[in-house]
């Protein structure tokens, strides 16, 4: 296995592990993880976009609670599946991917996106869901929703561009 020597030891070990080797050598593991990652992304990004748009004033005719709960469950499912398949894709070539600049930007953006959801957009959405329609969404929460959309679109673009830089 030709690892990238300047990568952290832990990631070189991950790439050289039995798991990493199994993912590389199996005919189906890598393509299945690849397809699964994209399917999970559509689930996640779609449901997150619905929640963000709701904070920005869309779907005003629908009671917020009717959207918030299912969208949240869908987003969690998508995120879990993305983490699992993403780890598989990462393990196969950990030393190379970790040192890829686009991947580093993507990892930073994911951290930012999750923090934004946990600290600002999520709580604002819970408030909207509990309060019912016609609630005025605070400017801070609207900004967080717009930021969330921008972050996840950028994460998607970075994910695709890892292979090209």
């Amino acid at each position: 296995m030709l690892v990238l020597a300047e990568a952290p030891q832990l990631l070189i070990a991950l790439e050289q592990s039995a798991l990493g080797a199994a993912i590389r050598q199996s005919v189906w593991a890598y393509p299945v993880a690849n397809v699964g990652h994209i399917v999970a992304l559509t689930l996640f990004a779609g449901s997150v976009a619905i929640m963000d748009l709701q904070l920005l004033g869309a779907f005003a005719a629908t009671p917020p609670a009717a959207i918030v709960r299912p969208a949240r469950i869908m987003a969690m499912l998508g995120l879990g599946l993305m983490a699992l398949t993403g780890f598989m894709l990462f393990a196969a070539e950990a030393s190379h991917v970790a040192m890829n600049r686009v991947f580093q930007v993507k990892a930073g953006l994911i951290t930012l996106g999750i923090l934004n959801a946990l600290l600002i957009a999520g709580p604002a959405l819970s408030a909207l869901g509990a309060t019912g329609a016609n609630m005025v969404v605070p400017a801070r929460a609207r900004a967080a929703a717009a930021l969330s959309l921008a972050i996840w679109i950028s994460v998607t673009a970075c994910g695709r561009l890892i292979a090209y830089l």
Partner: protein
Amino acid sequence: MHKTLGLMALLVATPAAVLAHHGWGSYDASRTITVQGPIQSSSYGNPHATITVKAAEKVWTVTLAPVSRMQARGASAELVAVGKTVKAEGYASKAEPNEMRAERITVDGKTVEMR
């Protein structure tokens, strides 16, 4: 007739190209091979640049990286031009007997990572 043959060749070649782009399964990553020799032909295009290399025992088709990555890492079209001597380390295809995926190449004393 030629058109039909060309179309058939394209249909047969496409899945291999798609696998080459996205897969690990189609290469034997358990064994590293080294192919060394003069470059006989060079295609500097997407999704991967490819070269053919005349090694001692046979002519290998060597799959390199996408053009943007090649450029970002200093592997210009001139570096992998016909006539240059290249050393390619990587994995042999399980499907194509003469194809290998390069993990790194060395030309003119310069080593470039392909992944």
